[in-house]
């Protein structure tokens, strides 16, 4: 039985790294030249991120 927290934390970070690698391998490559301004405040752009309070269809 695992007694230390080290392997658990390592496994969580490894899964995160795998998630990112699979995301990139799946073709989801970000484009920094189409990135939004640093701050949404003052950007003149509508907020468009996903949020848990969003209702279907947003």
């Amino acid at each position, binding site marked *: 039985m695992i007694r230390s927290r080290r*392997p658990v934390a390592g496994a969580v970070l490894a899964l995160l790294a795998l998630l990112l690698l699979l995301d990139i391998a799946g073709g989801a490559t970000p484009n920094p030249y189409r990135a939004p301004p640093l701050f949404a405040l003052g950007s003149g752009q509508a907020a468009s991120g*996903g949020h848990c309070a*969003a209702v279907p269809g947003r």
Partner: protein
Amino acid sequence: MTAWALDEARPRTGLSRATVVVLLTAAVGATALLAGARFGLLLLIGLGFGIALEGLRFGFAGPWRAQILRREPAGLVAQLLAIGLVALAAFPLIAQNPGELVGAHAPVGVAMIGGAFVFGLCMQLVLGCGSGTLVNAGSGNAVSALALPFFAVGSFAGAYHLDWWIGLGSAPTVTAAGLFGPTGGLIATLAALAAVALFVLARAAPENRRLPRRLWIAAAAVAGLALLNLVVAGQPWGVVYGLGLWAAKGAQALGADLSGSAFWSAPGAVERVRRSILTDVTSLTNIGIIAGAFAVAVWRGGLGADRARLPATAWIAAAVAGLLMGYSSRLAFGCNVGAYFSGISTGSLHGWAWFAAAFAGSMLGVRLRPKLGLEGRS
């Protein structure tokens, strides 16, 4: 004990503090270069959340448990303080910058209230809420590490079915600013927060009525980071959406057809599933929270600490609770972060409904936890 002796006593983690700082700095820089400065900054904000939550032991599930079982209100009052601090700035910012900045506003409904109740119950079983599960997993807590992937799958599934659940009955979205105007709404929100804080303080033993310095600092730090999240992302701090998005990406990669879901087939959701995780707001802050908590654990030498032995029923309960937390938090339009913290601090009535329902669920959860073997044994 000397500093040398402390270093000798610290369990080896395999990573030095300097290595962790370099790795995290490189991750933020790489994200900014690959995806854009905003996304690098959001990862940095997430790291800040993780460091503040783990480093200053600011949580949600634990303080509610302390209030329910021992009438120790310090942690709960610190939450209310942080929410009030965010509200002070968020109300005028959202009112003066409509569109650019949005609140965590959602309708109160049958499924919303039921979902919050189930979430509150389950977060007491695993002793970790939305943010707490991320923090605990990052610092090597095996129960949270097991619950986390189930949380993500549950969040995806809950969003998939959300339209049906809303159909059971839902009121229009109500906000404090909509009812009383931005200033009146802020005053009403602050008054309600103060009333709850005074109520729980009045019920506490006199020696438990003071907040330790750590919690004052934590409340200010978490509030500052939440406000930064709002002005950078244009939306309040959230957790659950990002976890569901990870599972949605996985489901689609495995050939699942998401067109049958009103939520996942909406144009915005389709675009987010297609785009990189490195451009999703809540994914980045979630990753930052996990990594920030990991950094604090390394800093403290806490990764070498023993963990409690648990029976098989406890591991099964943790997995089921993780799944239910993900599913129910989508029906509730958020978890302790997206609904309770961000909902109330941006004036949504559903945040208050979430608070009441989840607290009732927590009262049942603290009693179920030992029955399921989750208290551990030496």
